[in-house]
């Protein structure tokens, strides 16, 4: 030992085995049940969209970082999450070129342009979807019924309610036998993955609890006032992309607040905006916009919502 140099650095000398790729791959693992459900309902359409989105995400991250002469993080799992999450929010019969374009937008303009992972303000996958909604509104709102992929264009349950005042049964919503985007169909599949992430403490329970709790409270209040006109809280919980958004997108570490109190505020804000859109907006669904809008408020929340200091109150903001 004496012939060898000893390493000298400041304490602490030990570290958690957890690192960024481990967190990202855990999220990917948690999404496996959703992927299986989407393939079950939409077979080859789902496979094609998911594969194209993931591959495009990894390659666009790699190429952008190479162009900027930076070390590549394309395989740390975060780009794959963006690709997969975006795929799961798309209508099953969206042309593959449109999906790929959305992914490139998400990775390059949603994430890398800010400096890469950790610096982005918005959830990249949702930003990609917002771009597609703006660019190709018709393609993005033509839906397919599960198992019947060729002909039928079925309106989503939320659109049916909004524009035709008809309710899809709760059970169909829970299991996923409804028309909708790839990943928002089966609440059951999403919950399996969510439990895994909660147990591994990768997502904070406060965000889905605050988000969905607000939705239940608000929709419940309106339902009690007028059950003829408004759907019940459970229906609102299960319909659309709420569960996927609450567990997998609002919980994105980079674009959500760092303090526990801040997370509550963020989550409740998401719920309020979502219900405003679902009740009075021009669109049937608003999970995407509710999260994106609250993403924009995160720097503000982080600036003013501070943890309680040990031994005294903090007077300054960040």
């Amino acid at each position, binding site marked *: 030992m004496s012939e060898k140099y000893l390493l*000298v650095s400041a304490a602490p*000398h030990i570290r958690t085995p957890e690192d960024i790729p481990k967190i990202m791959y855990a999220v990917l693992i948690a999404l496996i049940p959703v992927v299986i459900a989407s393939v079950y309902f939409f077979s080859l359409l789902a496979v094609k969209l998911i594969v194209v989105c993931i591959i495009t995400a990894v390659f666009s991250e790699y190429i952008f970082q190479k162009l900027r002469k930076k070390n590549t993080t394309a395989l740390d799992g975060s780009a794959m999450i963006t690709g997969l999450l975006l795929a799961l929010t798309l209508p099953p019969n969206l042309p593959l070129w449109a999906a790929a374009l959305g992914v490139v937008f998400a990775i390059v303009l949603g994430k890398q342009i800010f400096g890469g992972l950790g610096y982005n303000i918005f959830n990249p996958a949702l930003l990609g979807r917002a771009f597609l909604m703006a660019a190709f509104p018709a393609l993005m709102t033509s839906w397919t019924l599960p198992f019947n992929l060729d002909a039928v264009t079925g309106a989503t349950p939320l659109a049916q309610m909004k524009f035709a005042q008809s309710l899809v049964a709760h059970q169909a919503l829970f299991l996923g036998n409804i028309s909708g985007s790839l990943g928002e169909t089966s609440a059951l599949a999403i919950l399996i993955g969510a439990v895994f992430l909660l147990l591994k403490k990768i997502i*904070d329970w406060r965000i889905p609890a605050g988000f969905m709790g607000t939705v239940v409270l608000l929709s419940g209040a309106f339902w009690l006032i007028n059950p003829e006109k408004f759907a019940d809280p459970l229906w609102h919980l299960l319909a659309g992309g709420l569960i996927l958004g609450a567990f997998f997108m609002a919980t994105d570490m980079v674009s959500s607040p760092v*303090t526990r109190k801040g997370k509550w505020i963020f989550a409740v804000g998401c719920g309020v905006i979502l219900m405003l859109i679902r009740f009075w907006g021009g669109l049937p669904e608003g999970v995407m916009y509710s999260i994106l809008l609250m993403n924009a408020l995160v720097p503000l929340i982080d600036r003013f919502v501070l943890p309680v200091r040990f*031994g005294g109150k903090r007077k300054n903001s960040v």
Partner: protein
Amino acid sequence: MGRINATPTGKGYTLAKTFQGGVHLADHKEQTASQPIKKAPDPQRVIIPLSQHVGSPASANVLVGDSVKIGQKIGQAQGFISCPIHSSIAGKVVSIQSSPHPAGASSLAIIIENDGTNALDEGIKPKGDLSILSADEIKAIVKEAGIVGMGGAAFPTHIKLSPPLKNKIDAFILNCAECEPYLTCDYRLLLERTDEVIYGMRALMKALGVKKGCIGIEDNKPEAIKLLKALPEKDKDIEVVVLKTKYPQGAEKQLIKAILNREVPLGKLPLHIGVVVNNVGTAYATACALKQGLPLIKRIVTVAGSGVAHPQNLEVKLGTTFAEVIQECGGSNEGVEKVIMGGPMMGIAQATLDVPVIKGTSGILLLNKDELALEEANPCIKCGRCVDNCPMGHLPLYLGTYGEREIWEKCAELGALDCVECGSCTYLCPAGRPLVQIIKLAKQKIIAEQKKKKK
């Protein structure tokens, strides 16, 4: 109360107390926890630094060529916050020179060659029974014995025993948390020399005039808890408080919060809320100073880590080099990357093994690559783990970001000076960011700036 969790202890389920935040660490104590303390043979030569405590270094009162005896005072305390230094062996002063110091850089040290006589200094004799000694006499004995905080901080104990009159001390805590991984020196001391430790604790309580005594101990030490709970009837006034095993439970402020539910206000000391905390080793050293008249010239050192052939707790004379201590434990294994004095969370990495064991050397750890953190730092992903688990309620991620950009005023605003440097943030960071390291630097910069302004 601090936060309470039901945790199994030696006697079925009791409620273990704790504090907000912190981290659960793999404790690695199994390497040494079950082995009795072994006495190391006296070294041929000792290197005794004149600075082994917080405060001004002592000044040598022997000359090269002088003969010294075991326990003889060889360094005189200088100023209010300082401590005397004593010889740990009998022999001849061969040199007084600048030598490598385990706390970094170099410091003036007295080097003594052992003459094999083991002659004791004449002043070393029992100081009389605790019942007849007054508080002031105990303080004087502690001061003369050069006793410091033995948990690693090495703050002179006599200062802690002399709080300003306006601060009424009403509680004494014996710190047996030992929350750093690998270290078991306090645990073994408590287990094997219980009577001395309790005697020392009573002496410290008497010096402070305190009636309420608590022993704070983590629930991963069921043997010691059982032993303490079975203390004789006369010790029933000392309360044994079982704490949840969590880092940094042994940090003074967190310990007081967990046991007494009192919070030390920002910028204040435990004495401002009427509490004094001392470590097991400090109580033991106090007992030795009273019962045998022996100043602080030896201590228990945990030698552990996968790089040590035979990990164990050694009772070592101060001034023995790390190299000799490691040799005594069968030498080192292949692949040692780092040698640390203290625990792996707050200990100090060593550049050489020629540094001596000093008063604050609680452990010598030899760690290999697998046990260490050697990855590169990545950008923060704002996971918030440093925030959720900071025991002081800080925002380490922003302290790190501002510090990286050298915006020290912002670090000051965010409370960098109140950081206890436990390292939980760096430990937890999945991006491998050196958060506490940046905060330590920020503290230095902020203090330097404040000094500049005063001038």
